[in-house]
Each structure stands twice: as C-alpha cells, then as structure tokens.
C-alpha cells in the first residue's frame, strides 16, 4: 500500500507545455529536431534551445528555492555581472583557471550571503533587500571592470561557455549537474521540507525548531552561487564581461521561469526540474519566434501572454472553480510495529 507517486502528474502541465511549444516549432520548421555531430559537439535547433536556455535555467534553480521561502531575489542579474566581471578581469590579469573560478563563485556566494543576512537577520522584505544589490551590484561590476568591456582569450575559461563534454555543450552539462546537485541537496536531506515549511509559515516553523535564519541564508547563498555560475557561463561564452549588459533583466526571466514552472510566488511547494523546464519553455518560444522571422522584440509580448496565462491558472479566483487534486493514501490500520505489512489497506 503505497501512495501514488506524485512526481509525473504534478509536472504534467509543464512537460505538456514544453512538448507543445517544441511541437509547434517542429511544425513550423521540420528541421527543428534534426541534430548533427560536428567537431565532437552536437548542433541543431533543439541543442540551441538547451544551450541558450542554460543561463536562465541556472538562475531559475536558485530562484526556485528563494521563491519557495516566500522570497524573491532581484539581484541575480547584477550578481551575474559581478561574477563575469571578476572572472574576466582576473583572467586578463593572468590568473589560472582554478583561482579565477573560485574567486568568481566566491563573489556570488558573498552576494548571496549579503542578501541572506538582510532577509534573515535584519528581516528586510526580500524584494527590498535584494533591490539594494540589484541597484548597487551593477555599479560594483563596473567598478571591477573599470567600466570597460573586458575580453580574454584563455581557452580554459572559454571552454565553460563554448566547449562540450561527451558532445554535449558545456552550459547544458553545467546546468544538468547543478540541477542534480541541488536536487540531491534538498531532496536527499530534510532541507527541502524546511524550505517549504519556512515558505508557508515562518513563525510556525521557527516554533517547531526549524532554524529559519540558517534556511533563509542558505537559499540566498545558493541562489547567489547559481547566479555566479550563470554569470561565468555567459562571460565564458562571449569571452568577455560587459558589466552593463551581462544578465540585464535576466532576474525577471528567472522569476518567470519559476512561475511557469508552477512554484507559487507565495512560497511553499517547489519543483526544481519544473523551473528548469519553465526556462526551456521560454527559450523554446524565443527560438521559435526567431525562426519564424518575427522581430525578436515580439518575444516580449509572447512572454507576457504566457505569464498571464500561467498566473490566471494559479489565480485564487479561478482555482476556486477547479477540482482539488486528491491523493488518497488511506490511514494505515493498526499494524504490528515490527513489520510494516504490505498487505495493509486496500
């Protein structure tokens, strides 16, 4: 007598939407799914969607957990700029790959720690707390690059952006790894439960002994790390750092991806994979619009449309009329404490 696995059914709308968008692309461009191998790397529109969707997907992984605690991190775009600026400047200054990565990711962690402390210790509303770094962060990034667009030629760092591992582009690999690590971190430990508990009711969680400040700082630090990784990927891809434009408005795309992924902005239940799928849906639409020859700007309107539809589906006014999904697992009748009898219940 086990409870029906909730995973696939809960993720169904997102998978369905992704499939629908991909299918639409395929109908428009029969070549959409064709993938070819060239110079030991896969190419094709589908690979392109994955590759270009990687930065937002990376941001969405961190953002999902922040939103699950009923917060939001507006600073991820600025943190991307900082981490990219640090990586490019240090590489240009002749540092090795390892220290560059460490410094760049460290900068992201530090930014996350700052946000986390403001939210958890000073108890500043997340939108406001992260607004500070959103405003100042880009200034800091420009401070690092001294207002220049810093370019580099180091093949090691560039590999992160344009290389491939087992024919798969590195950004995709990195996203998959970060997703896997994050999922393991929250689902194989009790962190996921605590994040959801804090997101639903912080007071109650604290009263039950959940270390809420630590949980909050942890999610913002992790979000900062994810943003730093995204910043690295972008900087490595273009072999340079543009403090002004790197990650500009990507915080909004990341939030959008999380929302499309079905995690409520009011905190609580979250799905990491669903958020990544959300990012891919957005990217697939973007690619489709580009391929159809529409102006890329048209994408903004489509994005807005998607956002409204998803939100309408989550809107309390509408959900009143939708049936509640039931997941019946009957209470076990008194079982012997020794053996969890598999035949119990029916």
């Amino acid at each position: 007598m086990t409870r029906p696995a909730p995973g696939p059914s809960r993720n169904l709308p997102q998978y369905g939407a992704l499939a629908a968008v991909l299918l639409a692309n395929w109908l428009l461009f029969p070549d959409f799914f064709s993938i070819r191998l060239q110079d030991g790397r896969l190419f094709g529109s589908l690979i392109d969607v994955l590759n270009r969707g990687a930065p937002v997907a990376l941001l969405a992984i961190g953002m999902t957990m922040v939103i699950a605690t009923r917060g939001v991190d507006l600073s991820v775009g600025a943190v991307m700029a900082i981490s990219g600026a640090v990586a490019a400047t240090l590489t240009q200054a002749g540092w090795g790959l390892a220290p560059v990565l460490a410094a760049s990711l460290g900068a992201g962690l530090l930014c996350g720690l700052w946000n986390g402390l403001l939210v958890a210790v000073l108890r500043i509303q997340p939108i406001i707390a992260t607004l500070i770094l959103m405003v100042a962060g880009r200034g800091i990034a420009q401070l690092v690059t001294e207002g220049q667009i810093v370019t580099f030629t180091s093949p090691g760092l560039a590999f992160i952006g344009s290389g491939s591992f087992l024919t798969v582009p590195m950004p995709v690999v990195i996203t998959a790894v970060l997703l896997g690590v994050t999922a393991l971190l929250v689902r194989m430990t009790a962190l996921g439960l605590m994040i959801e508990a804090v997101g639903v009711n912080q007071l109650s969680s604290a009263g039950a002994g959940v270390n809420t400040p630590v949980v909050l700082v942890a999610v913002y630090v992790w979000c900062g790390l994810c943003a730093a990784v995204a910043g690295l990927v972008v900087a490595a891809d273009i072999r340079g750092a543009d403090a002004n434009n790197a990650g500009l408005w990507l915080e909004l795309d990341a939030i959008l991806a999380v929302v499309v992924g079905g995690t409520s902005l009011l905190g609580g239940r979250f799905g990491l994979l669903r958020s990544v799928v959300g990012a891919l849906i957005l990217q697939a639409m973007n690619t489709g619009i580009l391929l159809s020859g529409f102006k890329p700007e048209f994408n903004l309107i489509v994005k807005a449309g998607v956002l409204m539809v998803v939100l309408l589906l989550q809107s309390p006014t509408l959900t009143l009329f939708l049936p509640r999904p039931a997941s019946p697992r009957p209470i076990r009748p008194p079982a012997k404490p020794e053996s969890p009898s598999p035949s119990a219940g029916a």
Partner: protein
Amino acid sequence: MIHRFLPLLVTSAVLVVGFLLCAAQFPAFASLRVVGNLLTDNAFLGITAVGMTFVILSGGIDLSVGAVIGFTTVLLAVLIEQGGWHPVSAFAVALAVAGGFGAAMGAVIHVFQMPPFIVTLAGMFVARGLGFVLSTDSIPINHPLYAELGDLALRFDGGGKLTLPALLMLGVVAAAVVCAHWTRFGANLYALGGNRQSAELMGVPVGRTTVAVYALSGLLAGLAGIVFSLYTGAGYSLAATGVELDTITAVVIGGTQLTGGYGYVIGTFIGVLIQGLIQTYITFDGSLSSWWTKIAIGVLLFVFILLQKGLLAVWTGRGGAPAEA
C-alpha cells in the same frame, strides 16, 4: 508627533546637507542654473515617481512604468512623424492609452487577485514589446511645436530657468500632495495599503481604488513619456530602461514604506532630487566614474531601509497608550 515625519526630515536633511557639501566643493553648484537643470533633468523621473508613490502607498508596485514611458515616446514619434498628427492630439491619445493600460493592469490585479509585482512585470513586457512592434529605431520628432515647447521656460537671472518639464513636474507633485491628503481617493489609498481586508470592511471601494491607482500610475508614466520625448526630441522603444528601479528607489529614499500605508509624496520628490544631486555631483567632479552613482544610491537605499526598519519597530513595539476615561 515629530517621529511621524522623521523619515521625511532625514530625507530632507540628506538633500540639504548633500547640496551644501556639493556647493562647498564646487561654488558653481549653488546657482539657479544648476538647480533648474536638476529639476529639468529629473522631471520625467519625478512625474513617474509620483505615480509609483501612490501605487506603493496602496500596497502595490508598478514595474511597467519605464516600459510605458518608452512606449509613449515611440507612439508619439510614430503618430506625429509618420501619421502626421498634431502633437496635441497625439499627447491626448498617448495619455489615454497609457492610462487605459494601467487601468487594465489594475483590473487584472483586482479581479484575479494576482500579485501586482507579476502583473506589472507582464505589463512591462507588453509595453516594451508593443514599443518594439511600432518601431525598433529611434525616431526624431521634428514638429515645430516641439521646438517651441522646448524653449518654453520661466527664466531667472543668472541663466537659471524652469523649463516646461520642470514646471510640469512641480505641478504634478503639488496636485499629488493635495490628492493624497485632501481627497477621499487619497485616504482610500492609505487605507488600502494599511490593510486591504479592513479597508474593504470599512467600505473602501477596493476594486475601484485599485484600478484607479494603476490607471493614475500609467497616466503619469504617459505624461513622463511626453516630457521625455520633449526632453530628448525623439521616440525610442528602449528609452527609460530601468526607470522603474530608479523611481522605486526614489520612493524608498523618500521615506515611503514599500509595504504600503505609510509615506508622503513630497518625500518621493526629495528622493528624486537626491538621486539627481548624486548624478550632478559626479558630473561636476569629472574624475569620478559613473558607476559610483549606482553604488552610492545602493548605499543610500540600504541606509534608508534600515532607518525605516528601526522606526517601524519603535512604532509597533509600543502599543497601548492609555486612553480610558
């Protein structure tokens, strides 16, 4: 009594002290010309920030204002230059479209009970997207009225002048102060920001007020778009990118609680001036790089948020003034 106005006092003090410091370093600073330019350069920001203050007072937020400004400038350019409209009728259409756009967002927020943050984010995408659809290029506006309006100004001795944009901003601020404190609409806004449910139970027309406040914000963003197009003499869909952030910053520095219910329009005005002052100082200095503006504003934001946090803790920490007979 005094601590109710403390955020406002601190904001004003920052402006005055900042200005005096600037003037001490650069004597040319303390001139009517600089002050006039400060007002002109920040006119569109000030007008937008007034609308944002109302929205934030009511407990919401409007991320679409920058995009609406950009869209308005393109719309004006397209109507005047490509459609051959007279600017005045183009202004009227632009204001109506911007106001209607805000009202639509307000209606969605109210009817579907959706977070304003997200609805106006979608609005931002829509407005920018529509701007791009109209034109992706910067279109110069060459109508003679634009040149006339650009020259229109109250001139003072010493080269100082109050241009039309600056006058418009001052007028909007004055009207907004009256609206906030001497109209029922203003009281309803504060009520809504204090507690939506209580306000509703007390008979505040929540739906109407919500729609109206976003419509007002859209309308003012449209007006700011007109001012912006006068100021730059062009329409460009990428114009005023990030202005939503600047206005929110001005509102917070001006002492308004981002959670709604507490704050003053005049504070926002001062907040706009402080931001302008920092920018002007960095221009005057010449050796300082532009990114210090962002960092300085970030630091100011942090300080003011901490200040508000402290004050709110003091206010709510002491309940129960004895009042029984």
